[in-house]
């Protein structure tokens, strides 16, 4: 009985130490995502054992020289476009179909996807790959653009479910997520201001016209 009591007491002491340990556990600070998160990918070819890697634009210095040059060229082309829909005709048509003005399209993310750990001799090409990403801005998703050899192509068949987008491509390089950034409707403003301003404008113009006419009449009286 004494032994049982000692074992029980020891167990309680160990448990209480653990509880104080839990109480002191540190919860780290969150960090933001600089690029969408790679959720899953699936190569068409079952011979391909490559892995995919996403690189945020801000981390482009970690890419190969060619990769860095490509993503920087992609960035420049987006920044210099007055209208994102001008980057690709299919994107422009898609925006029109959705009733979105080209000038209200915006690129929310620009990132590179590349292949790693691929033994190049194992197969002729990677073939198609279906990629699933999660991103923060997919509630207003319009499309994905793929930067290939200096030109933008619209990735067809991209589908969104919640905060994930799935698409299939047969090559990898910079990608951009395009969203509808139409500004929110303004809060219900008191439009009485506009009516008052228009009324004041109209009355003052009419009064000015009358004054000019009166001025001329007085001059002609002279």
């Amino acid at each position, binding site marked *: 009985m004494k032994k049982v009591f000692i074992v029980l007491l020891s167990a309680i002491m160990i448990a209480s130490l653990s509880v104080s340990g839990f109480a*002191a*556990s*540190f*919860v*780290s*600070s*969150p*960090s*933001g995502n*600089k690029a969408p998160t790679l959720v899953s990918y699936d190569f068409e070819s079952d011979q391909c054992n490559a892995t995919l890697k996403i690189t*945020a*634009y*801000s981390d482009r210095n970690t890419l190969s020289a060619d990769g860095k040059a490509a993503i920087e060229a992609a*960035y420049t082309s*987006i*920044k210099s476009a007055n209208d994102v829909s001008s980057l690709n005709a299919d994107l422009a048509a898609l925006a029109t179909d959705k009733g979105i003005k080209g000038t209200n399209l*915006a*690129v*929310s*993310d*620009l990132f590179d996807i590349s292949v790693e750990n691929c033994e190049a001799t194992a197969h002729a090409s990677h073939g198609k790959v279906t990629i699933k990403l999660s991103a*923060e*801005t997919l*509630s*207003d998703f319009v499309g994905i653009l793929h930067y290939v050899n200096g030109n933008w192509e619209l990735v067809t068949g991209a589908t969104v479910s919640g905060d994930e987008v799935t698409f299939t491509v047969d090559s990898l390089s910079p990608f*951009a997520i395009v*969203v509808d*950034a*139409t*500004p*929110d*409707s*303004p*809060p219900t*403003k008191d*439009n009485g*201001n*506009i009516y008052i*301003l*228009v009324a*004041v*404008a109209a009355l*003052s*113009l009419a*009064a*000015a*016209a009358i*004054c*000019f006419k*009166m*001025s*001329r009449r*007085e*001059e002609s*009286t*002279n």
Partner: protein
Amino acid sequence: MRVSSTKKSRYYKYAAIVLLAVFLVSFSLAMINIWENKNGRYPDQTSADKNIEYNGVKYKLKDNIETFVVIGLDKTLEDGGESDAYNNDKQADFIMVFVLDNKEKTVTPIHINRDTMAEINILGLSGNKVGTVNKQIALSYNYGNGGKVSCGNTLNAVSKLLNGMKMDHYLSVTMDGVPVYNDLVGGVTVEVLDDFTGIDDTLVKGQRITLMGQQALTYVRTREGLEDSTNLARMVRQKQYLTALREKTMEKLNGGDKFAESIFTTMSDYIISDLSVNRLQVLLDKFSAYEFTETLELEGESKVGEKFMEFYPDGDSITKTVVNAFYRESDE
């Protein structure tokens, strides 16, 4: 005495010119209104209500107030200032809103918990808003170029948190600026509130010491390894440190040895602000002359979310804080 026709003609002409000017102004304003309505380009900061009622009492928004937000970053100067990317990995680890009442000559500080769950604008490649997300307000700084754009995004998030109160100006400082400024004022004396054994053995709980150099940063920044590693506990130390820092700063400013000038020359590398040096000087003069009221903090609930700490401020506490800082009882 009859007015001559020539004079009448002249008066009519003057009147016509004035009326034309009125027409141009009102027409322009009407066009701006119509354009804004069409394009939805209202300032993203929601407009605050001028008149409110809280707990049965009517309040009116104070006039002649200005806000200044100090943002402490979790990165050093070496981690770079403004980047050439549209997002970055810096966070607003410390956020303090100073509400200056220029009529009453008071300053009301509002200390915002970095873990406060808030609506944050997501910024796209062009720095424009492409969506919103609800997460810890510290992460508002991630969006943008890590400099002025990110500061603006944090101000926007703070404004939305505080019921649309306008945030006028900002100053962000990298964390390695803390020991520099600390030493510039000759060190800051505090009674050590927590046990730093194993982290910095010079910081002995209960002892009153003058923090110098890295000690100051350790004291205001450390969480991991302390008995209470929450941000709330850290905020208590930060509030204590800031009160003492302010007192030392005022001492130095009133010392008349061109201290204000030395602040800007020493700290310029560590700070980003939308205010010029001259305007910062004006602000500093106000800080020196005005009376500081008690620091306000939002009350609410802290809990661990999926992985990280999340602080949910109580709606009534937000309103109470906003009323205390921005409103006065209405005469009506």
